[in-house]
């Protein structure tokens, strides 16, 4: 990739769209202008507090995190316990709030409500861990490439190009197909293996911008070491776009996990996953749409919450787009 400045921002950083390079945002990501008294972060926080989208998504996310951490608080029913004799494809009782039959029963006679609640953990775990992993790998490689330039940049950028050439979903399908046992960590590793490139690109370009800043030159002139410059001066000022891309991508990873599980290549039994339940539900959708709609709704809600948060953070950190 030549350094053509792409007027492309982070919008499409979610995974399944195989994000556009999410931009060499060089010159675009305005580092904090010194005339403002507040720091970039303070400014962003001030901005965030005034956005309803931020609050809606935060409340949703806190709720989801609580569900993921303590599913037992919300239902006492074992999500794996099926009763074919009494509950085979039982219809939902929308009035019975928080009861096992609230969302009806699936074709194993299991409470869909209980499964939706217990399925939260895997999705959130995958989303958060993959994001952490790609931020770590992509961020580090992007930083190295951007800061040192030269042959390090060439090598890393070529590797990024190679991985980027593979369509994300297809690549993870091939990788996961190789694992006969797919626990949560396997899915996380597979998604991270092919997902780190966007972050690397974004970080690289923002680091390039940041390292040219006067204060970096000043620090170098004062004899600061490379490590110190990188972590004290460059990183804090280059990390904003990375965070934006990562937050938005998080929702995408959850969606990708569900898609893979749906294809039979994601999480596997006994892990409870919305993707698997949606796939099961799709087989009886004609007469029992509830088997698909509730897990699908919960999945979409979760992705929605993360993407909305990412959106709000992006707007806050990237004032130019406001």
């Amino acid at each position: 990739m030549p350094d053509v400045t792409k007027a492309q921002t982070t919008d499409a950083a979610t995974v399944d769209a195989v994000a556009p390079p999410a931009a060499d945002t060089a010159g675009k990501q305005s580092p904090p202008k010194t005339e403002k008294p507040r720091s970039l972060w303070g400014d962003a926080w001030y901005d965030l507090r005034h956005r309803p989208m931020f609050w809606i998504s935060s409340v949703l996310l806190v709720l989801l995190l609580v569900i993921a951490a303590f599913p037992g608080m919300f239902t006492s029913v074992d999500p794996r316990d099926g009763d074919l004799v009494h509950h085979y494809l039982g219809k939902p009782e929308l009035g019975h709030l928080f009861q096992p039959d609230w969302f009806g029963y699936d074709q194993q006679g299991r409470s869909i409500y209980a499964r939706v609640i217990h399925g939260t953990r895997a999705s959130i775990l995958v989303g958060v861990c993959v994001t952490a992993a790609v931020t770590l790998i992509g961020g580090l490689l992007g930083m190295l490439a951007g800061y040192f330039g030269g042959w390090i940049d060439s090598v890393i950028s070529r590797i990024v190009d190679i991985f980027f050439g593979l369509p994300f979903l297809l690549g993870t399908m091939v990788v996961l197909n190789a694992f006969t046992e797919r626990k949560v960590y396997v899915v996380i590793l597979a998604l991270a293996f092919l997902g780190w490139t966007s972050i690397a690109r974004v970080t690289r370009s923002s680091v390039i911008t940041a390292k040219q800043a006067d204060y970096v030159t000043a620090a170098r002139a004062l004899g600061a070491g490379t490590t110190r410059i990188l972590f004290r001066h460059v990183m804090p000022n280059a990390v904003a776009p990375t965070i934006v891309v990562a937050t938005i991508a998080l929702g995408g990873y959850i969606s990708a996990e569900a898609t893979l599980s749906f294809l039979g290549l994601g999480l596997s039994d006994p892990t409870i996953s919305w993707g698997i339940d949606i796939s099961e539900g799709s087989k009886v959708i004609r007469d029992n749409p509830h088997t698909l709609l509730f897990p699908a709704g919960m999945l979409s809600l979760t992705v929605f919450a993360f993407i909305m948060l990412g959106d709000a953070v992006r707007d806050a950190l990237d004032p130019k787009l406001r």
Partner: protein
Amino acid sequence: MRGAKSAKWVAGAIVVALAATACGGGDDSAGDDMNKGKADPNGIVTAQLSEPQNPLQPANAKESQGSRVLRTIFAGLVDYEPGTGKLEYVNAESVTPNDDSSEWTVKLKPGWKFHDGTPVTAKSYVDSWNWSANIKNNQTNSSWFSDIVGFEDVHPEKGDPKSDKMSGLKVVDDNTFTVKLTQPVSYFAYKLGYDVWAPLPEAFFKDPKAFGEKPIGNGPYKFVSWEHNKLIKVRKFADYKGPNVAKNGGIDFKNYTTADAAYSDLRSDNVDWIEQVPTTALASYKTDLGDRAIDQPYSAVQSIVPAFYTKQFKDIDPKVIQGLSMAIDRPTITKTVLQGTRTPADSYVAPGVLGYKKGALGDIVKFDPAQAKKLIQEGGGVPGNKIQIQYNADQDHKPWVDAVCNSIRKSTGVECTGDPKPTFQADLDARDAHEVKSMYRGGWVLDYPVNSNFMRDLYGSKAAGNTSGYANKEFDKLSSDADKASSIDETVKLYQQAEQLLAKDMPAIPLWFYKVNSGQSKNILGKIEYGQDGDPIFDTIQVKQK
């Protein structure tokens, strides 16, 4: 979605003419317009097919799609009589054994012709078998010839073949040849119904590869064209001399990749027969189709098999396995999760096979949680109190595995989870490599309709189909005695004794027998007849006159 495509992997099956005697769809009710009208002898039947995975060579059709087509193009030496499973001659005039069934003489009906006009002779058979058995020719079914003397010369375990002919095959005259076997097999003639034993015309040997794209057979239909991923056409062969002359003008095998697509075409009469109703429509297809719905058992069984090489099952008391079997609520699961696509199994042998005995397994397959718990306790419990059932996730097995596990967990407290492998390959690899952790899904569709096929080929300690590491000397002895028995009746009886032995030892837990859930269009006159392998008998299908 894709799992629904084809629930069955019919790895090998027979040419059949077993009529649909046990047809669950019931006899044709009067006043139904399905049975009214006149048959059009030139009418074309449109049938569902998925793209065959291999070239159309008789010994290379390991999966159901290719053999479905091949069976219309080729006629074998023998077939089985409807209902009884007795041998019926097709291209053969007689197939007779010597005293100890170790040498067989095949006499052909004279005057038969291939579709290209060349005569069908003893040489057509012998050359065909020699070619197919040859390891160099990569025919997946080549091991079917392993009973014949000289097989290891053309199919050595290592290295190049020493010869291109099996010494056990001898052409006597144009219409006679003899087959010498390495050991007596009382039911050898029964095996001859399978696709691999078909004759091949001279044209084949000139260019086997081209032949695979444009086969020439001796059967009731001649091959017309194959548009990949779209359509395979076969048409009635006017000079066919066999008993099963086609009652229609030909078959168009139309390609579908999903059962859903085929089903919606069936409902709009764009296809006349489909393989299997999609899972999404199982609840409603009988109302959708009325009398045109097909609900038809065939000879296949599904079971779960303990891996006897694991620590868990190495020295297990069979009582524990019996207990697990009794913890499975087969009737409820078949009715609900499986939506009536299977019937509870009561034997190791599937119905429609010589020697199937109703209720052969007695109480062992009855659902009785209390007794199940008791048996498991008496047997010393399940080591680790936890089992796993390995299956392949690329087919629609998850629902029933989950249901079986739920049933076991609920009735006995033994923890049970599915252990999905992403693909059938991965599943088989784990089985072959003896890496199954606890139990695995087993399935078996008949190769030939004798009960030995469901026992010796699966549970014999040396059987190639035995991947569980099960070994029982007593059973081995009994089955080898049975194979050497003087008559087929005797063989069948001895195998029935062997089945009782297995019931005590539990090499597997039979779950259910398969059914075909399908349908036919309004263009078809009368109900489509089925063979025991779950495929229709195409030559008997009649098309209504328009």
